[in-house]
């Protein structure tokens, strides 16, 4: 038979598979184009990510190093304890302003010791130091009153202009109108560098320290805010996870399908869309004004963020529960487990990785949130000490990392700007670690059954 060569229908004339017809070629081209769009889309996304990360890194790494001046300071008894009784109350009477002569003295000594030739007055020399130097000295003296009269080596922060000079942010041209620093002072700085008195090193205080006022950018650190964020995250984790999981279990496993569950469902997805500032309004009204919880406290921040994160956790937990195959539920029911037992013994453990992923994403979102904190008093100048107990950590005033970054970004001294970006780097390290954890969990537990 010659069946094979005969056209068997009107539409497709018998053709060799080994030759592409024009239409197929066209369709294949469309195919490649389509795939190309996909690659381009991903590349755009990744490019944006890289640009953002590059911007952040290039602007923020400077915050991790700082310029220090190392000097011998004589703790003059004549200035600090005129009576000589070492009575702490009397020593405390000397305010930080009273410590200025000590610093001037230290400069005098340094200049002599290193044979630096300068016309600068000691008062102007002292200006290259941070304003925190005096309080650093005072703090030391109050802690060690017996050291009065001795000469101790101190490492002082240089002020932000000097630090900027070492980091290339400040130049001799740029300070033309700057009343905070003069060219002569920069010359002096150069001499100090040559003498090895002044150097730029890694600055751990940025990571563990507390905020400083607008005049002392060099002394500001994000550590306490980090602890504030940590406590808020603890609250969120402790509340949002159990409540979110409980709500999801009810909705997914037990709730009858009726209008009440519909209302709850719409509510939850709507809460996910409520601008975060509105949660701040809610927090102020309910937790502070009505329940009288303390202001600026991480506890309140955590509660507000809990309400904000709940929808995220509920939505992803429900998805995780839904993904557990019904056969597992049947199996449990089949051996006589109650529905509650089936859920708690089998479904929940299987959904755990999904739930954790959702929780981590929710936490990450909460970690970066600023607006609601504005209304419950966690933005501003909150230079608390590190909390010592958990209770104190929850209840004593504190800031949070994004709030601190936001606050720094607004301040006048450009040195704060660098710190804001540095803070963003730390925040991002947290976020990326959390994301990585989520990915690892997802990968580790994905479809084990």
């Amino acid at each position, binding site marked *: 038979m010659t069946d094979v060569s005969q056209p068997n229908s009107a539409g497709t004339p018998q053709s060799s598979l080994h030759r592409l017809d024009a239409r197929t070629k066209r369709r294949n081209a469309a195919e490649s184009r389509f795939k190309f769009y996909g690659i381009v889309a991903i590349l755009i996304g990744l490019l944006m990510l890289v640009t953002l990360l590059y911007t952040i890194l290039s602007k923020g790494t400077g915050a991790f190093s700082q310029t220090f001046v190392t000097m011998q300071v004589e703790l003059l008894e004549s200035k600090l304890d005129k009576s000589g009784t070492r009575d702490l109350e009397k020593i*405390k009477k000397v*305010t*930080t*302003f009273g410590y200025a002569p000590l610093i001037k003295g230290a400069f005098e000594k340094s200049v002599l010791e290193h044979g630096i030739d300068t016309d600068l007055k000691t008062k102007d020399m002292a200006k290259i130091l941070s*304003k925190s130097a005096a*309080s650093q000295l*005072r*703090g030391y003296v109050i802690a060690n009153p017996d050291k009065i009269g001795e000469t101790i080596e101190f490492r002082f922060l240089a002020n932000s202009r000097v630090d900027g000079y070492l980091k290339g942010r*400040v130049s001799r041209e*740029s*300070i*033309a*109108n*700057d*009343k*905070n620093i003069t060219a002569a002072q920069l010359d002096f700085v150069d001499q100090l560098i040559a003498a090895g008195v002044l150097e730029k090193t890694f600055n751990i205080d940025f990571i563990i320290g507390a905020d*400083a*006022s*607008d*005049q*002392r950018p060099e002394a500001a650190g994000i550590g306490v805010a980090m602890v504030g964020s940590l406590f808020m995250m603890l609250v969120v984790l402790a509340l949002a996870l159990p409540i979110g999981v409980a709500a999801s279990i009810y909705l997914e496993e037990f709730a009858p399908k009726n209008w009440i569950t519909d209302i709850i469902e719409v509510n939850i997805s709507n809460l996910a869309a409520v601008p975060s500032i509105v949660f701040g309004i809610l927090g102020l009204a309910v937790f*502070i*004004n009505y329940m*009288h*919880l*303390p*202001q*600026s406290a991480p506890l309140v921040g955590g509660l507000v963020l809990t309400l904000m994160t709940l929808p995220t956790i509920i939505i992803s937990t429900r998805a995780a529960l839904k993904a557990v195959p019904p056969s597992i539920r049947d199996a449990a029911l089949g051996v006589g487990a109650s529905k509650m037992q089936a859920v708690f013994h089998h479904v929940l453990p299987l959904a755990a990785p999904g739930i954790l992923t959702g929780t981590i994403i929710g936490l990450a979102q909460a970690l970066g949130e600023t607006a609601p904190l*504005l*209304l419950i*008093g*966690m*933005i*501003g*100048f*909150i*230079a*608390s*000490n590190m909390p010592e107990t958990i209770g104190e950590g929850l209840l004593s*005033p504190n800031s949070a990392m994004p709030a601190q970054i936001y*606050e720094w*970004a*607004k*301040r*006048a*001294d*450009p040195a704060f*700007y660098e710190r804001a970006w540095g803070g963003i780097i730390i925040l991002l390290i947290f976020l990326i670690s959390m994301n990585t954890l989520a990915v690892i969990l997802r990968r580790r537990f994905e479809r084990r059954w």
Partner: protein
Amino acid sequence: RDQVQVAGSSTVLPYASIVAEAFGENFDFPTPVVESGGSSAGLKRFCEGVGENTIDVANASRKIKDKEIKACAEAGVTDIIEVRIGYDGIVFASDINGNGFEYTPSDWFLALSNEILVDGQMVANPNKTWADVNANFPAQALQAFIPGTKHGTREVFEDKVILAGCEATGAFDVLLASAEGDTDKAKHKAAEKACISLRTDGVSVDIDGDYTETLARIESNKDGIGVFGLAFYENNTDKLQVATMSGIVPSTESIATGEYPVSRPLYFYVKKAHIGVIPGLKEYAEFFVADEIAGPDGPLAEYGLVADPELADTQNAVADEAVLGSNM
């Protein structure tokens, strides 16, 4: 609670934070907590009531309003101590490498107002460049970054610059003549309102953020002129050059003497009921206005606060715990 709790104006915040920090260093009291969030939000929380769970001090970049005093009283906050700490200078600055300007209020009115007076008629503002506004100026495109309507600075800008310019150019009289209203007062108000209505074609850009944002705008648009606080300008002299107003260079001195016209007073308010209850509250208030802090040589002035020539009166008032309305 053992620390003083302060909230309010973001303009006062830097000064308050400098004081709070020094206070914490030199006293045995813990460092006060100073929140930002705006004068209005601060006063609102101030007027929430008395007690540990309310704030002790509200910072404000304006005087408390009568309505607010009333709302305070309704919530039991009756004895309020008003403390004026100094003045905030408001300056006009542009990119350091661009043209310098010497303004008068009229220039700003002619640059930004919605309608200006041309040949006795109010017409839609036709000016495109500074040269159109004033022949002495270079032909640089008009672009102004002014505080958004939420900022107190905006009110000062409108009052002391635009309105002054409106009157100086004669536009005010024309507007008053044609203003609608039953009473003189209403007419006056309508004319003022017309004066300060600014053009919306993108020449004048409201900045709702902070001065950092204004600075960033100028950096990305070199033609822009921005409105800044004096303190902010002084910390960024490497990027900005300041313009004079009516021939006066803004500085803490020229503002303190009143030569430079554009400035506003800064305040904080203390709840008398909390004095003696919250440890360190009175000490904080006194420390804030002490000469070594708020005086012309103190750190606040160094940072850019215009010291109050009548600081001594304020110090006495704080020491006496004189409350609002007591001298009326």
